[in-house]
């Protein structure tokens, strides 16, 4: 009978084991986005963070293994057996054991704490006076990101351009509620608090388009408040800066259906310009739309190249599709956003789409 009972227990445990094994396999086999995951760091900050994650995980796994080993042994060995009505020895405690499991955890924590302190200070290093560092002012809005390069006098939105291998010094704040700036693949996150300034440094060790997220609940479209960090070579970055910081920008809509694009520009100048600026002309309530044709996303989260093909034709086609969707019903696409243009006619949407999707700087 006792053996039966034990077998049943073992079967129960046995039934669970494959379940967890399968689960773990599926999860690790799962193709997570390498430009989004904290587990595939592409920059010194994220690498240090992953090191701390692993270090604490391994130390804790050791503790877990010890607990589970004792636990499993005890459960099997000390089950009540049928017919055994003896009274177990009523042990009060054991000083030696109790000292051991107080002191060893202390030592293990020191193993984690020492590199923790040094990493904390490394991540808090100040690059504000570093001439080499690219300075960017980040302002979070419901539900978009404003990026301001004070040295190059560039204002842009949703996409942060940075050169590979260079320190980028961020000063972050918010125009409304609290948001949190998070680029898992390159660095951790920091909150953007209204009325306060936070700082953080970024450095990417690889080129690519990294995904950024808002991590602090900020209202109805918190889930959609994505941004991109576009890491490019120094030359490409310099070219971008030169293009974006021209005193007299010459935005064109080359390659567009000119009549339709002109119509779109007219509508833009009538309806959109009070909130959105192009080439420095226009309002500051919404994102700056200069050089819009090169954007990776529409409304910050509708991806123009969702499968990272790198194909310009694919990106342009999706840009138009997404822009059309967005302009047709912004409230449905991104609930709670401030763009109130529900009254646009379909032909006006077409015209604006044509205009914006071809808008580029030379």
């Amino acid at each position, binding site marked *: 009978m006792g053996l039966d009972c034990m077998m049943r227990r073992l079967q129960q445990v046995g039934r669970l084991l494959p379940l967890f094994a399968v689960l773990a396999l599926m999860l690790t086999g799962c193709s997570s986005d390498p430009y989004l995951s904290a587990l595939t760091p592409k920059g010194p900050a994220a690498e240090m963070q992953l090191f701390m994650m692993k270090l604490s995980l391994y130390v804790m796994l050791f503790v877990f293994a010890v607990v589970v080993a004792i636990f499993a042994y005890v459960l099997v060995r000390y089950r009540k057996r049928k017919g055994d009505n003896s009274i177990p020895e009523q042990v009060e*405690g054991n000083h030696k*054991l109790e000292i051991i499991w107080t002191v060893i*955890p202390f030592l293990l924590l020191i193993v984690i704490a020492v590199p923790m302190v040094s990493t904390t200070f490394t991540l808090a290093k100040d690059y504000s006076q570093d001439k080499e560092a690219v300075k960017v002012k980040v302002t979070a809005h*419901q539900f978009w990101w404003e990026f301001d390069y004070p040295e190059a006098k560039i204002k842009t939105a949703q996409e942060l351009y940075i050169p590979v291998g260079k320190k980028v010094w961020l000063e972050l704040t918010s125009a409304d509620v609290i948001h949190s700036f998070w680029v*898992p693949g390159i660095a*951790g996150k920091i909150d953007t608090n209204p009325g306060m300034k936070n700082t953080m440094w970024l450095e990417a060790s690889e080129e690519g388009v990294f*995904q950024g997220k808002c*991590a602090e609940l900020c209202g109805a479209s918190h889930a959609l408040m994505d941004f991109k960090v576009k890491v490019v070579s120094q030359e490409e970055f310099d070219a971008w800066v030169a293009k974006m910081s021209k005193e007299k920008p010459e935005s064109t809509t080359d390659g567009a259906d000119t009549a339709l694009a002109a119509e779109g520009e007219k509508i833009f100048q009538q309806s959109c310009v009070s909130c959105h600026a192009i080439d420095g002309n226009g309002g500051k309530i919404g994102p700056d739309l200069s050089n819009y044709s090169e954007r990776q996303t529409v409304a910050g989260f509708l991806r123009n190249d969702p499968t990272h093909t790198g194909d310009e034709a694919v990106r342009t086609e999706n840009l138009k599709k997404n822009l059309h969707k967005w302009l047709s019903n912004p409230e449905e696409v991104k609930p709670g956003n401030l763009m109130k243009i529900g009254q646009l006619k379909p032909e006006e949407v077409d015209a604006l789409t044509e205009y914006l999707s071809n808008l580029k700087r030379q």
Partner: protein
Amino acid sequence: MAQHAARPRNTGLKDWLTTVDHKKIGILYLVAGGFFFLLGGIEAVLMRLQLMYPESNLFVGATFNELLTMHGTTMIFLAAMPIIFALMNAIVPLQIGARDVAFPFVNSLGFWLFFFGGTLLNLSWFLGGAPDAGWTAYPPLSGTTYSSTHGVSFYVLGLQIAGLGTLIGGINFLVTIINMRAPGMTFMRMPLFTWSAFITSALILFAFPAITVGLVLLMFDRIFGANFFEVANGGNVVLWQHLFWIFGHPEVYILILPAFGIISEVVATFSKKRLFGYSAMVFATIVIGFLGFMVWAHHMFTVGMGPVANALFSIATMLIAVPTGIKIFNWLLTMWGGQIRFTTANLFAVGFIPTFVIGGMTGVMLAVAPADFQYHDSYFVVAHFHYVIVGGMAFGLFSGCYYWWPKMFGKMLNETIGKWNFWLFFIGFHLTFFPQHFLGLTGMPRRVYTYMAGQGWEMGNMISTIGALVMTLGTAVFLWNAFVTSRKAEKAPADPWDARTLEWAIPSPAPEYNFAQTPRVRGLDALWVEKMAGNKGMTPAEPLGPIHMPSPSILPFLMSVGFFIAGFGFIYHQTIVSVVGLLVVFYGMFARSLFDDHGFHIEVDEIKETEKGVKL
């Protein structure tokens, strides 16, 4: 001597509305807390359904934010805390050999304040929208500029009223445990559950004033146009976060310590052994309670406090792992050499151990400030605190319910159904929350109502939702068990588990006066000591005599209704309504203070009659 009233004999609804009996108040807490637990659970399942597939449209934007806010707020304040209070009420006086709590009237007031506060909060669903700024209600999002419905005002007033109830409940248990222990029941002979109730009450006493202050400031901002958190007028939004977490972190220990207490009782009983390292366990409980106040800012590593504060709070947080580890090892060593019986109560306790250890592991990982820059506000955090609160506290509460059900209701829950309950809940729990660790590490922020396809999160979210449905099934099985048990005729014996502590020395359910004669306690595990000495029960410390009891009163109910009305007045800026409500409250306070009530006596004949038919 003043004339005592005649023995009141209320029945039905009137009895439940006026009772000051700690055992009945315990049942009220259990039923009301259970109801809110189901509400919070439904909200959770709705969110999981929305997140089952990418880009779903079931509950989007602000609606989803209402669900997540109400899920968190309901589960913490209206489900977890009340069910803890249910077990504390039902058991603590019995464990220390008392006839009731120190202030039975206040006890009833505490329950009704919680009940009406919770009701007020939940009515927001029908009155223009629930709060939608998260259970943490960070301003400015919770201010009127960005949350213009009355939702957050319901949150502020509802929690303020419910919080009053919790605070006076905590004070009541402190006084009870300090003053009402039976002869011989020294502090170091108190069962661990009573110890944890004691420390939890102390935490309530020191933590709740912080949230009260925070809520008052937020209330002034929202209702009277103050500027504590209005940045444009010089307010500071981080101030709220400090106040909230100075309360919020001890709150975590307010929740988990009673679960530790329950596990300590259950593991010892079903191993047929004395708790290993009792004094270390007591000491660890006190240390955890103390350190719980030193670590609040680990919820704020990304706020921008700077490396010094982050490093210090990081180290302080890690230290909590040491006393917690002591507890885990003491439980394991309690089972070592015992005769472990796998009743449902013990299955939950045994299931608690590895589950809680995983929650503790991720807790230490989260304590590492630089790594927290990645974890913070991601699904990793969601996974962590559900491992601690569900895998820790909820497992503990289930265990406690199965263990003490006979003492509370006089009937034993069905063990076969109980095992279904455990396995469904246990497996469902791990399916739900284990994948969420990986979702967070691969970039999924928490509190998002949807996610785009192609980011690698489809599988994890699907498994998580399936798990949530399995957990729901497990909960339904528990309800079924409670229903089946209530229809069963068979009565539970006084000591069905061959247990160790004082509550098992009296009949199940406990009679109105608890102990016919106050017992004399001769050691830790008072009943076990007598069993081992060959005695049939406790040795009385007093002769049999009439027992003095407090009178039932409708005033606590009435005063809580007054607060409820006043709350509405404040939310809708109707001064007259607020004044009327507060007048009702003041009437109750005056009536209570001015008219003496000397209670009544239960006579010896009745006691003898009650004790005669007892199955010991």
